[in-house]
């Protein structure tokens, strides 16, 4: 038990990864890695994927194209902004709310899910663009991130949508509850430690 407690001690504390982490693969690779290394964005995309998988209509077919495109467009807009947009708190709020929607298991219509997903992708793409604007190769990084979103969305939606089996449907809702719980904890943490925004 003491060994477990020792292992559970914190690793090196790092700053939130709003910017790029050099991967050695160039700006394109850094941008792709940004999605994976930035869990808030990753959870946002995951929550949108789960919502689309549960939804009625052509959500699952259109989201892999719509989401990265909207992210890219928003990001391009973000490059023209003078200051970096705060993304941590709004993104966490969005993740929490989306997780809750997934947990409820409501089969939303495509005309609600797709515009909503596109709007969120535009918004957080805008924030991503404003964060990447100061980087050399920021445009390539943004494109890399959009490609990563497309790949991730496609790979996840292929087996998940539509959730025909009962256990899969319940599994999506369970994961939704985990996303909500994570978001709630993170919200509390952000309020308690506002310097981490």
């Amino acid at each position: 038990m003491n060994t477990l407690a020792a292992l559970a001690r914190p690793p090196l504390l790092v700053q939130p990864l709003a910017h790029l982490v050099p991967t050695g693969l160039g700006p394109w690779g850094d941008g792709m890695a940004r999605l994976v290394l930035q869990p808030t964005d990753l959870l946002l995309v995951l929550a949108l994927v789960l919502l689309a998988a549960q939804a009625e209509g052509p959500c699952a077919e259109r989201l892999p194209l719509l989401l990265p495109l909207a992210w890219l467009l928003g990001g391009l807009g973000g490059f023209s902004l003078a200051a970096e947009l705060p993304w941590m708190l709004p993104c966490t709020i969005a993740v929490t709310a989306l997780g809750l929607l997934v947990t409820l298991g409501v089969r939303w219509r495509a005309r609600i899910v797709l515009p909503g997903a596109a709007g969120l992708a535009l918004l957080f793409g805008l924030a991503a663009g404003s964060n990447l604007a100061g980087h050399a190769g920021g445009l390539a990084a943004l494109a890399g991130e959009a490609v990563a979103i497309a790949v991730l969305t496609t790979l996840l939606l292929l087996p998940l949508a539509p959730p025909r089996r009962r256990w899969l449907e319940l599994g999506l809702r369970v994961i939704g509850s985990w996303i909500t719980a994570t978001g709630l904890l993170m919200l509390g943490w952000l309020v308690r430690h506002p310097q981490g925004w």
Partner: protein
Amino acid sequence: MAAAVATPTAALAHAEASHGGGLVAGFLHPISGLDHAVAMVAVGLWGAVLGPPALWVLPVAFPMVMAFGGLLGLLGVPMPGVEIGIAVSGLVMGLMVLLEFRPPLAAAVLLVATFALFHGYAHGAELPPGGNALLYSLAFVVATGLLHLLGILLGEVRRWPGGRLGVRAAGAGVALVGFWFLRRALL
């Protein structure tokens, strides 16, 4: 497990006040606290005893309410008797499994959610600053969910000959651990 019960040195729902970011730290946190871990397993066990829909409703409700409790803890909202609440959760959940008590679903959810609030509060109050707080939270929630899943899988042993007795015995074990921690919290 017996050795861990016999030699506790501090409340184990929150192993270290210095826990920070990181997947590993978050994942190990619920597992390293015996009082927390047995209660999580008991939620799954009781869900298996109750069957669908409680089988999945309880493990869905618990992490969300637990996180809400964590939010209250992080915000510094006072909550009295947290250690006692955590210990009672193990005791009561264990008894529910031992006695195969089957209340209406709403009552079961209410009971589990109440206990989840205590568990979450204890953890939330000690979630320290760190850039990996999100990974920590995510891993923490996933570990809790996996403990529920472990309980469900153990509970499914009921389908086998003699399995029902084994599940009830597991419930008795959880209740004993809960009683141990309750005794410590009250003394």
